[in-house]
């Protein structure tokens, strides 16, 4: 099995080299210039890199391992559910893109919290956002690392810890050294690796199953539910299916790791191109990976855990060397999510907390070199903490991870959307919405309160919208400066 390690190591080295190259492209700036360089790459992304980085930071272990695993158990209905995510890129860019790009340049924003501060002028909003980012991202990163190390273990046969060290160190290192440019460029590479891996894996499965028609008929004879929209045993009821149009549909407008990308592109044309390319690529990726999971059942029925299907397919159907090449697919999905979150956590600490509160937003008090060293050390330290936590994950982080995705949406969705499109939205409303949203989401999820198949995110969004509206009555009206900045009049 050792031979699988060769291409994998080669791939990791390639990622590192690419990151170094990207970092050398960065211009040497001073003060606030450094911040915009390190955390948003000087707002220079073109269409292809923009599309890839949105897709790569969005698709994670769950799209490459967990999702196909559920598809293995439930059939084509779960692929249908996964395809709800096709609009991710064009929705994010189309709804938020241009306003974010224009405002980001005006207020020098590198994080969503920057943007929300400019809009609501409230410390409570900044603190809540930062806590949400630190907590939910830390938990998600640990979960991603664990997922990656397990895939590595399953495919290579080496211990969990070895895999963790290998790609954990790689991702922490290139993110800390290269900043946003390294993250964006490696995301693009990782996106391409994911694409190629998904094609190879799907074709290998179809071939092993005796062709598409044969595969589907085999599944039908196992359980006709596998080829219906409602899944095996009707496990995907319509209310659940439709609530995913909120969770992984409209709700993604509240995910800081994808929406932050809207600050970083070069010009309108990049955004237009990315909307088209991004939709085609993410659709392709989601379809191929999840379909591979479903068809995998026709080839390898009887796996104990659905999560094993993708590693098992790679291992069984591909020669060892090529298994090493294509296990890079899931690892790429994981690394490209972790690098983004890592950099955003670091940005949150440096920009949202340190510069805003310690330096009172005055970057002239500090030299560019010092801020550079701090940003680097901060990214490295956070990365190492996450890395160490993944060896023996604390129960608390594993538990928080269950709410991370929905929790981020509960915190950020309405403050972002209403902040941008409702002139009277004020800080009190935003704070009420964040607090109420998280509280309802966690209560509903922990209490396992039955909602007739509807996902907890749906009542969460409704309650946090109401809380925003009610809180808004008590808040102070929006100042003229903010109105002028955000609406130009």
């Amino acid at each position, binding site marked *: 099995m050792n031979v699988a390690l060769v291409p994998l190591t080669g791939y990791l080295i390639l990622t590192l080299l690419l990151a170094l190259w990207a970092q050398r492209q960065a211009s040497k700036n001073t003060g606030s210039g450094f911040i915009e360089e390190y955390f948003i790459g000087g707002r220079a992304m073109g269409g292809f890199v923009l599309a890839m980085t949105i897709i790569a930071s969005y698709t994670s272990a769950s799209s490459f391992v967990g999702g196909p695993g559920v598809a293995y158990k439930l059939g084509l209905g779960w692929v249908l559910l996964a395809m709800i995510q096709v609009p991710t890129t064009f929705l994010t860019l189309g709804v938020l893109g241009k306003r974010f790009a224009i405002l980001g340049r005006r207020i020098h924003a590198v994080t969503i919290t920057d943007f929300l501060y400019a809009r609501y002028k409230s410390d409570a909003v900044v603190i809540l956002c930062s806590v949400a980012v630190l907590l939910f991202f830390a938990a998600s990163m640990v979960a991603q690392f664990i997922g990656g190390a397990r895939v590595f273990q399953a495919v290579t046969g080496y211990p969990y810890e070895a895999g963790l060290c290998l790609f954990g160190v790689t991702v922490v290192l290139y993110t800390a050294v290269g900043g946003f440019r390294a993250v964006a460029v490696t995301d693009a590479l990782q996106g391409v690796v994911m694409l190629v891996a998904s094609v190879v894996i799907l074709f290998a499965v179809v071939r092993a199953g005796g062709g598409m028609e044969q595969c589907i008929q085999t599944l039908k004879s196992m359980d006709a539910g596998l080829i219906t929209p409602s899944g095996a045993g009707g496990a995907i009821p319509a209310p659940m299916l439709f609530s995913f149009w909120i969770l992984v549909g409209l709700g993604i407008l509240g995910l800081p790791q994808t929406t932050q990308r809207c600050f970083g592109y070069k010009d309108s044309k990049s955004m237009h191109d990315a*909307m*088209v390319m991004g939709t085609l690529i993410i659709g392709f990726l989601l*379809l191929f990976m999840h379909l591979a999971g479903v068809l995998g059942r026709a080839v390898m029925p009887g796996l104990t855990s659905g999560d094993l299907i993708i590693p098992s397919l790679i291992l069984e159907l591909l020669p060892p060397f090529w298994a090493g090449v294509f296990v890079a697919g899931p690892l790429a999905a994981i690394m490209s999510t972790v690098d983004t979150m890592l950099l955003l956590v670091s940005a949150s600490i440096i920009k949202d907390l340190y510069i805003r509160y310690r330096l009172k937003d005055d970057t002239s008090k500090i030299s560019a070199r010092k801020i550079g060293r701090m940003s680097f050390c901060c990214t490295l330290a956070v990365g190492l903490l996450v890395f160490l936590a993944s060896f023996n994950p604390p129960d608390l982080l594993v538990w928080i991870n269950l709410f991370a995705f929905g929790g981020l949406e509960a915190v950020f969705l309405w403050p972002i959307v209403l902040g941008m499109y409702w002139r009277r939205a004020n800080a009190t409303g935003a704070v009420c919405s964040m607090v109420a949203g998280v509280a309802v989401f966690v209560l509903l999820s922990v209490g396992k309160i039955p909602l007739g198949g509807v996902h907890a995110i749906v009542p969460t969004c409704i309650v946090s919208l109401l809380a925003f509206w009610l809180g808004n009555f008590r808040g102070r009206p929006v100042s003229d400066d903010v109105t002028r900045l955000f609406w130009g009049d």
Partner: protein
Amino acid sequence: MKKAFRQADREALITLGLYAFFFVWWTVFAFGLGSGDPEEYSYVWGLPAWFFYSCVLGYPVMSLILWVVVRRFFVDIPLDAPDEEQHGEEKK
């Protein structure tokens, strides 16, 4: 700058329209063709027809429509046009 914001808002509305279109496409094909008895399904390329139209065909069609819409209705606006009134404030 107001004009740029207006244009951005118009594009956001168009995007939501496209999103609604994708939702309808996905729903109509999945449930229109897929709700019946699996014994009576028709197949395209070996896949059940509901799946083929909603999932396999859905996203390329969407991308094609996006390509046309972006070229026809999205405007190449400058993102960093200096705004005279604002210039003082952004420095804080």
